[in-house]
């Protein structure tokens, strides 16, 4: 129940968006989101409401730093 799912915004309407993950599309209300969203953004959807926007840059940076630290050759 508490599962929040990251989904990609495919269209933005007046009160909500249509978001998609793995080919499944769902409506998500924007009533609880205090950030602007546009098509292509990733949002966390919980029980039909967008609750947070996913900072993709931050995610990529985390991964980049980790890859740098954990190079396969260092992990024998």
């Amino acid at each position, binding site marked *: *129940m*508490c*599962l*929040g799912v*990251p989904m*990609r915004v495919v269209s933005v309407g007046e009160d909500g968006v249509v978001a998609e*993950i793995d080919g499944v599309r*769902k409506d998500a*209300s924007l*009533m*609880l*989101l*205090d950030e602007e969203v546009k098509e292509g953004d*990733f949002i*966390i959807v*919980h*029980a*039909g*409401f967008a*609750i*947070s926007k*996913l*900072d*993709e840059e*931050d*995610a*990529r940076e*985390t*991964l980049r730093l*980790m*890859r740098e*630290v*954990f190079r*396969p050759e*260092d*992990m024998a």
Partner: protein
Amino acid sequence: MKYQDEFRDRDIVQGLASRIRELVAGRREPMTFMEVCGTHTMSIYQYGLRTLLPPQVRLISGPGCPVCVTPNEYLDRAVALCRVPEVIVATFGDMVRVPGSTSSLLEERAKGADIRIVYSPLDAVALAAANPGKRVVFLGVGFETTAPAIGGSILAAKKQSLGNYFVLAAHKTMPQPMRVLSADPELKIDGYICPAHVSAITGPDAYRFLAEEFRIPCVITGFEPVDLMQGVEMLARQVVAGESRVETQYSRVVRPEGNRKAQAVIREVFTPCDAPWRGIGVIPGSGLRIVDAYAAFDAGKIIPVEVEETKEHAGCLCGEILKGKAAPADCPLFAGACTPESPVGACMVSSEGTCAAAYKYGQ
């Protein structure tokens, strides 16, 4: 969504595991970290993360499954409500199979009660709009992530001037049980893996008292294996350094201020109250009730019912498991009398329950 999969990168997970091993190599004293989110519990079992950790690092599960911490009394009240003529009970799916004292919503449905499983509380509002002759009662359980969604549904029902949408509210907030567990000398928790999406709403400050008053490190962690292993590494690093801070590993989603709009919806519709937790008992200020201004939407006030006397399930260790004092295998019913097909206790019913995760993925 490719980069989400990258948070499952085997090499990074292994790298984090070896870093944790190095960090704690010289220590004899084990450190115990508790996760208080059902989705974390599922991920830890699903990816076998315990097997990657050295013996000095122990992960235990706490009261993180919203359905599991909901006591029998609430389920008995829901059962009584669904027996009222012209009432439709709308609920998230994992509530229907939880046994109350003598029945469950699933059993009541088989007997003819109108019980609908919905994905969003807004679906329940739509159900009320489409059935003006009926009264729709949504079962409002969950933590800070779900509370604003259900508050939002009440605001939506008000906007549509619906007089037949109600919520049976039993929301709970996470910091208070963490205070109770932190003060328990039997548990001795050395760090918290703080919930991800609860924190997206509350922000990291909600846990500051744990770090400052109880000197327990806290890390808000995402759900993927890389997130969880990095969260454990950050906790171990704090323990080794003798520090206690609230850190956010899941910064791609959790903002320092949390989600102010969702916080405002909670404040508008709910007010704190004392609440009973399965296995823990009543915790002051740990629940959310509907404020008087929205009493017209409060099923507890508008639709009175007689509730049967509450009975606990004999032999079930759910209470001890929710406190982190027992593991699923310690329960005499686990995988015998109690299975996901025929659950005795709530921890086996919900997919976020510790027993369900242990049963599905093994120990």
